């Protein structure tokens, strides 16, 4: 008797759940007829509050929504296997633009974009890549790339000026950098950084290392402590979450750090002197605008100093005026083409 009752209860719940769902399906989506331009953003597994990449992309989405009265949505990916269904979800609902945040989604974007040739896609930091890993341009996909070497160059100018003039705690004329994994966007940052230092202060010792991780702070901290023990007093991190450990090492030992991707001056005030910035928000904003204007361009789209796609962040008060002046001069020279920062590492 008890069993019958329990099963009945279970069945009732299921029926109730189904009923709720099917009545909802009748509602339909109100936006379908409105003809507003629809833009969907799919984050990678870092999630919306990563204080970096995904968050910046979402800021760009919200700004574009406000300024161009678009209809936008976001999906946070919880696992890598969600990339394909999440992109598909937007494509199936006839979104005008689907944005994939991060090179980790290259293959997923290729899979979905080839299935939905009438939907436009954009990949931050990447191009569509087939199952073998070969990238290829697709007629409906914009590849949003950044000239990280230019941002690296700008913070390199600041670091080199401070090291050369022995400003504040930077007394050993030695500057360092740490990447996460040696992949092209990471190494471009570091290449520009080293290029600036070699140009401005040839006598400065340069060290570079990798934490082999983008998440684990402890690994970044170990590399940082090692660098500091070798007299480094300016540490530039290009390693996401792992890089926060590199900054933490600088803070613990009382030397300077440089943030990456977004303005990280608030991560460790007094330690972080500036940040090499890549304006992911601007890439999302501009691409959304392009879809609205009808000026969407498939293939490689470059975000660089010329279109304010890169830059350097807020400066700590320890950074002297001549360092800022040098960085601003370098920025102008990069824009004019007088300086072309290197993309290959000087010091591995």
């Amino acid at each position, binding site marked *: 008797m008890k069993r019958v009752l329990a099963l009945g209860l279970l069945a009732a719940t299921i029926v109730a*759940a189904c009923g709720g769902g099917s009545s909802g399906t009748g509602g339909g989506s109100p936006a379908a007829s409105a003809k507003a331009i629809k833009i969907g953003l799919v984050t990678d597994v870092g999630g919306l509050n990563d204080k970096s990449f995904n968050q910046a992309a979402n800021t760009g989405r919200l700004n574009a929504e406000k300024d161009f009265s678009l209809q936008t*949505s976001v999906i946070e990916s919880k696992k*890598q296997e969600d990339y394909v269904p999440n992109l598909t*979800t937007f494509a199936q609902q006839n979104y005008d633009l689907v944005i994939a945040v991060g090179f980790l989604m290259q293959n997923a974007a290729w899979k979905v974009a080839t299935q939905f040739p009438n939907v436009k896609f954009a990949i931050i930091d990447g191009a569509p890549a087939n*199952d073998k890993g070969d990238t290829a341009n697709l007629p409906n996909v914009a590849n949003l790339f950044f000239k990280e070497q230019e941002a690296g160059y700008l913070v390199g100018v600041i670091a080199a000026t401070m090291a050369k003039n022995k400003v504040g705690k930077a007394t050993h004329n030695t500057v360092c950098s740490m990447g996460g994994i040696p992949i092209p966007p990471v190494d471009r940052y570091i290449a520009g950084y080293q290029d600036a230092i070699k140009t401005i202060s040839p006598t400065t010792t340069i060290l570079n290392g990798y934490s082999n991780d983008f998440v684990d702070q402890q690994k970044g901290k170990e590399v940082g402590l090692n660098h500091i023990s070798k007299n480094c007093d300016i540490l530039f991190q290009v390693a996401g979450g792992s890089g926060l450990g590199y900054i933490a090492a600088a803070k613990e030992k009382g030397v300077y750090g440089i943030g990456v991707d977004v303005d990280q001056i608030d991560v460790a005030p007094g330690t972080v002197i500036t940040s090499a910035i890549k304006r992911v928000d601007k890439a999302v904003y501009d691409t959304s605008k392009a879809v609205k204007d009808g000026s969407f361009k498939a293939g490689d789209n470059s975000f660089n100093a010329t279109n304010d796609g890169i830059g350097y962040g807020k400066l700590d008060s320890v950074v002297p005026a001549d360092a800022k002046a040098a960085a601003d001069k370098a920025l102008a020279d990069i824009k004019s083409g007088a300086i072309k920062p290197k993309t290959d590492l000087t010091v591995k």
Partner: protein
Amino acid sequence: MRQPTAQWATGPAVPVVSVVVALAIGALFVLASGHDPISAYVDLFRGAFGSPYDITETLIQTIPLVLAGLAVAVAFRSGLFNIGAESQLLVGAVAAGAVGARFGSLPGPLLFPMVLLAGIGAGAVWGGIAGYLKAARGVNEVITTIMQNYIVVFVMHWLLQNGPMTAPNALGTPASAPIGDGAVLPVIIPNELVPLTRLHAGLFLAVAAVVVFWFLLWRTPLGYELRAVGLGARAAAQAGIDPRSRTVIAMAIAGGFAGLAGMIQVSGVFHRVFDGFSSGYGFDAIAVALLGKNSPIGIVLAALLFGGFARGGTIMQANAGVSSQLVSVIEATVLFVIAAELIVRLLAARRRGPKPLEAIA
């Protein structure tokens, strides 16, 4: 004869109540975030089951949850708490991915069984190690299986980032080379019927595994012995069943189920192994087994619920603007309610006599 259904029937009230309570508490969170709970839940449901495509995506999420849930449940039934389904799943995935890529040129009829056995076998050995340590040295399986999780995660880092399995051109993410075509589980629904569906033949393997689980535990002498040990090791020993050997066997079977889950993810979904592959199915599986009361039907229903949450949460975020993190809140609340019930039962049992979860001292 009656036991599996009887077990389920003694308790469906608790799982159902816990889900209802969790949904109600979740609704409060939705309200607090300034959204309409009804429309959020409608989107949650539609996202999971609203269209044929959604249903197939939900099933893709459900398959590994069912298998990892069985891995936890076999251990539970034998008086063991298997926290290591995650690492057993990963070991199975790595073994399947390694064999599938290394012998990728072999024809399917040869390659597929090899990959299948590699996945199940690796998981079984890995699970069996925890069982052996418990049986031979008395090391608590909760501790060993947790530590095994870490070992696997870091060995995978090494294997895939710059170790023997690293593929030269791996999409920027550390990954292995793709498995051979013969090792791939085919998509089972034609593209004309459900466009773009990824639902693969792993579904049949999962159904088969549920049947094996039921048959093994309730239709074979070994299953009887495992359950006897689970209900009371000392009593079982008195009856001539050696709890030590059954402990090793139970953990090996558990690892086999989880290893199969990993193999299916490789052969059915990703066709390669990559770093960060896990996704936490092995941990969700503990909730699935508890919610499903360690019974075959219960596990399938609980996995379907959690799989639906995973898929539906995505759509809820896209359409209703409610963070898909809400799903985690609901899942955690389900666990809380079930845990509360477990605590009450344990306290009651303590007053009556031996404690069921510590039967093997």
